[in-house]
């Protein structure tokens, strides 16, 4: 089937198309440069056209979600929508049901979402849930930062074996890249402890976070993976943590990039939570200036924000000691789990409120980061869903970025606490994003950071992943019409995934099976076998399950998109 989306105003930063009136054509699931006269015409006259969105960091599949749904039935009572002829019933607000997750991303015009934290031991479960989520392609990042084998290799600075271990473990788990969460800290939590800063030795391991991050980055580049290391640094949410954050970025500076498909050697995630100055919650203030200065000077860093949306949400992370602190702080219920040899995790509900000074300053810090990082290719739109807010709030965040007027209103009308004025510089920033920058932070830059050459843009041969929004970029004034902006980005006029029309006028009109994207490194199989000879006795001794039950077998992966990489090339 051939289609032509006619006369839209196209923003495609990857191909340097900035608001051109242009037809977008697709055939057999791919973008093409011409179609026959039989092509079905989809009229988009003067409407906003972009590639489908790419979410670089979201928690949507895996055991944390299931535990979250089990212990927060009160969240499932929100967002209930009955089934239709096309869709299954939806439920949940911050931890929606699997079908709801797919439908809601599609309604916002998204096509790809990265699951940001897959414990290898729970990889099977993660993939089962990916299968249950319709419409979006989902790569999953495997957790390596507290893995016992990683700690051992990092201690010995054994980059070569660590690289082979990663390569093997991505095959075993069908993972896409290397995720690091509170390196050393989640392991320390097994002893009721944490690590602080980069040079605090991990209990019983004689290795530091600095060594873990550096060795993993070296191994990542030696393999030439399509994504860089993806780092949730130490000290999340602690006043004064911006120094650890700067240190974490700085320690990567000597690593040379070994991939043509991306620009960065480290991706810093939910940077908002890591940009805090002060020494306690009373003198807590923004450290966004130092962080953004560093990023502006160093193009080897990309980040996503983790914008606070001021909602009641559910926090969930492999940073289990942080979750315990959070539970102590807000007194709400707490779930905690140890994943043997690999990581830990915790879940706590959280109510972010504009009446609370700390939450309001956190809100401001996220926006400061968006507005103070100059190059939109280095900063990406996320809420660390659901930690800082549910992903369905992206349209609202977009409206804040495009409207200084709205931000000023929120500060002046008391929708956020007046501490925002004293403890952040947000009120002084009048930058407003344009549509090109929005397209960059929500699709082009995330695709580039993950080395996805087949999506995030509208060039010929790209997947026909397309979003049309019911706003006229040449007529609208986003600064004043921020409500229209929010509504349009939340209800795509058209969402196309692999050439299939999924959404029309904000409603799901068809569904398709999601696909798992994983990185298959080739060329070091012998080295992997050597490493496995040393790994297996340890595995057999310490894991409570057999290796045969640990592997993710083919039948867990319904529709893989295998990205083949020649190691080191």
């Amino acid at each position, binding site marked *: 089937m051939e289609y032509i989306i006619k006369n839209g105003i196209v923003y495609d930063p990857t191909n340097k198309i900035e608001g051109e009136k242009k037809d977008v054509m697709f055939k057999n699931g791919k973008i093409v440069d011409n179609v026959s006269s039989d092509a079905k015409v989809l009229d988009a006259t003067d409407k906003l056209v972009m590639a489908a969105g790419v979410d670089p960091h979201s928690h949507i599949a895996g055991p944390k979600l299931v535990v979250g749904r089990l212990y927060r*039935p009160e969240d499932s009572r929100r967002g209930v929508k009955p089934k239709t002829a096309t869709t299954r019933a939806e439920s949940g607000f911050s931890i929606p049901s699997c079908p709801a997750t797919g439908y809601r991303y599609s309604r916002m015009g998204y096509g790809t979402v990265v699951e940001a934290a897959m414990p290898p031991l729970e990889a099977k479960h993660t993939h089962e849930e990916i299968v249950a989520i319709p419409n979006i392609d989902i790569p999953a990042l495997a957790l390596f930062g507290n893995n016992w084998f990683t700690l051992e290799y990092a201690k010995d600075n054994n980059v070569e074996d660590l690289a082979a271990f990663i390569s093997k473990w991505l095959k075993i788990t069908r993972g896409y890249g290397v995720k690091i969460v509170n390196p050393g800290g989640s392991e320390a939590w097994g002893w009721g402890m944490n690590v602080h800063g980069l040079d605090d030795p991990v209990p019983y391991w004689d290795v530091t976070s600095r060594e873990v991050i550096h060795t993993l980055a070296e191994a990542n580049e030696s393999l030439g993976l399509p994504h860089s290391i993806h780092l949730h640094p130490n000290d999340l949410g602690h006043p004064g943590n911006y120094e650890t954050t700067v240190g974490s970025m700085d320690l990567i500076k000597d690593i040379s990039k070994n991939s043509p498909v991306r620009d960065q050697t480290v991706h810093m995630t939910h940077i908002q939570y890591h940009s805090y100055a002060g020494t306690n919650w009373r003198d807590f203030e923004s450290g966004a200036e130092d962080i953004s200065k560093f990023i502006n000077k160093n193009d080897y860093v990309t980040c996503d924000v983790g914008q606070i949306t001021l909602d009641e949400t559910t926090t969930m992370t492999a940073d289990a000691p942080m979750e315990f602190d959070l539970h102590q702080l807000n007194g709400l219920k707490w779930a905690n789990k140890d994943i043997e040899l690999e990581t830990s995790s915790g879940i706590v509900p959280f109510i972010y409120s504009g009446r609370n000074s700390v939450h309001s300053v956190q809100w401001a810090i996220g926006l400061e980061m968006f507005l103070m990082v100059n190059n939109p290719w280095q900063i990406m739109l996320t809420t660390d869903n659901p930690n800082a807010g549910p992903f369905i709030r992206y349209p609202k965040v977009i409206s804040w970025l495009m409207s200084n007027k709205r931000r000023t209103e929120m500060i002046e009308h008391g929708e956020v606490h007046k501490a925002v004025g004293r403890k952040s510089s947000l009120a002084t920033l009048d930058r407003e994003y344009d549509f090109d920058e929005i397209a960059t932070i929500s699709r082009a830059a995330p695709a580039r950071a993950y080395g996805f050459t087949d999506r995030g843009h509208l060039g010929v041969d790209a997947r026909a992943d397309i979003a049309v929004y019911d706003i006229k970029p040449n007529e609208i004034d986003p600064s004043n019409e921020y409500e229209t902006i929010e509504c349009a980005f939340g209800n795509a006029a058209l969402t196309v995934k692999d050439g299939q029309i999924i959404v029309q006028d904000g409603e799901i009109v068809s569904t398709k099976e999601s696909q798992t994207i994983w990185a298959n490194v080739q060329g070091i199989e012998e080295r992997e076998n050597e490493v496995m000879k040393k790994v297996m006795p340890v595995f057999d001794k310490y894991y409570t399950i057999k290796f045969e039950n640990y592997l993710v077998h083919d039948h867990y992966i319904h529709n893989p998109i295998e990205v083949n990489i020649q190691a080191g090339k």
Partner: protein
Amino acid sequence: MKTITFNQKKTSPIALEFDELIPDTIYNWEKSDFDKYMVPIGNSKFSLSNYFDVEVGGEAESPAEVKMILNGDLGRVKYIGNKMSDGQVIANSSVDLHCGAEMSGGSILVNGDAESYAGREMTGGELEIKGNVKEFCGASYIGDWRGMTAGMITIHGNAGKQLGECLTGGEIHVKGNCDILPGIHMNKGLIQIDGDVTRWPGGQMQNGDIVINGTLSRFLEGFNQEEVVIDPTIAGKSFSGKYIKFTGDIARNGKGTIWLAANKNRHLL
């Protein structure tokens, strides 16, 4: 004033769900609107007129001017007065689950017993039950930590387990006896029980007051005995007689108070 009377024609073994039939939605309905209304039962909808004959008299400009009267056996009618914000509902029989749940205003009178979750998470208004209530009256729903936040529940009979669980405001008055764990996880508000309590009031309570005028058989460990107070004023209400004051639950650094009528509870001293 508009009086809307539901006279039952037949009962259903599966519960009818009445959450749409509240003054907020029906204040401007005519008889014909009721006759064509499809009521949810299980996973389907059926004509309301199979089950109730509805009489409409008078006029209403707003929900406040509605008096809704339900006659018959309402033992399988759920969500009576659920989420109502104004008006008056009178149920002349025992009612099924979730009566007055999440109501924010107006009043409900039940001339009978109420099943579980009566007045669950209500945020205002008055709920009066002439008979007994089952479990979780005025409580939060499973998982949530915010129960009833405001308003008044009066129970003339006995109350079931976990009355006022996670109570976050408002007042519950039980004139009869109460089963285990009243005021568990309570954060704020007042629970007054005139009869006896089986055991364990106020487990994990953070704040608020529980007054027990009857006999309490067993206490939880997390409460400290304080002084005896004569004719105390509790949450703005005057009580007469001697009360032994306990504070807790220390398991949660709680600042809650349990007041026991001294003459009925000497065995706990």
